[in-house]
């Protein structure tokens, strides 16, 4: 079946360092992926997306890498700031319709 999972449940980084959050997906037919940030008590906030015909996409301080060979997705955050502390979810667009299939989430903690 379709599933998306994350390698690590928690990640702690020093302020100013780069963060890398990983995600594995199982459906090789998935054609679209999104990273969301969720702060405590709030809804998922769209960060960046990538289509399966791309390997890399950059945004402001964030980069998403897609490795279709090993079905792996990563989110890189440059110069991590305290405001980046949150749970990060990768989500995969299901092959049926528009539903998103979410992974378990990685909690990022930024130490000052």
């Amino acid at each position, binding site marked *: 079946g379709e599933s998306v999972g994350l390698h690590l449940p928690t990640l702690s980084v020093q302020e100013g360092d780069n963060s890398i959050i990983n995600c594995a997906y199982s459906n090789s037919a998935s054609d679209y992926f*999104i990273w969301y940030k969720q702060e405590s008590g*709030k809804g*998922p*906030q*769209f960060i960046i997306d990538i289509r399966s015909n791309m390997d890399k996409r950059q945004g402001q301080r964030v980069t998403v890498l897609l490795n279709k060979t090993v079905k792996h997705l990563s989110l890189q955050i440059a110069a991590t700031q305290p405001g980046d502390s949150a749970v990060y979810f990768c989500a995969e667009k299901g092959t049926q*319709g*528009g539903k998103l299939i*979410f*992974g378990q989430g990685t909690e990022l903690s930024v130490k000052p």
Partner: protein
Amino acid sequence: EPEVTQTPSHQVTQMGQEVILRCVPISNHLYFYWYRQILGQKVEFLVSFYNNEISEKSEIFDDQFSVERPDGSNFTLKIRSTKLEDSAMYFCASSRLTGREQYFGPGTRLTVT
């Protein structure tokens, strides 16, 4: 910046009661979704809606659930007879294109006692 809004932010209800959760999607979006998140767990898809009909629904979305777009701006999720296990955060989302760039609202915390 346009955003999805949801009301109420917190709803407490007794088991067996009906609840209606309300959402106002982003105005130029055509696709609407409901998801839920049980405390500490991942976000789960419930239903997608387009052109005034359900496009897709999950196994969670059984006969006790229904969705409606009663006017040009609101999108509602109704649970006819709530169960304890319906307690969760319910998120509404909308997108301009199917499945892509889904923007989420702040959620409604539903507590069933």
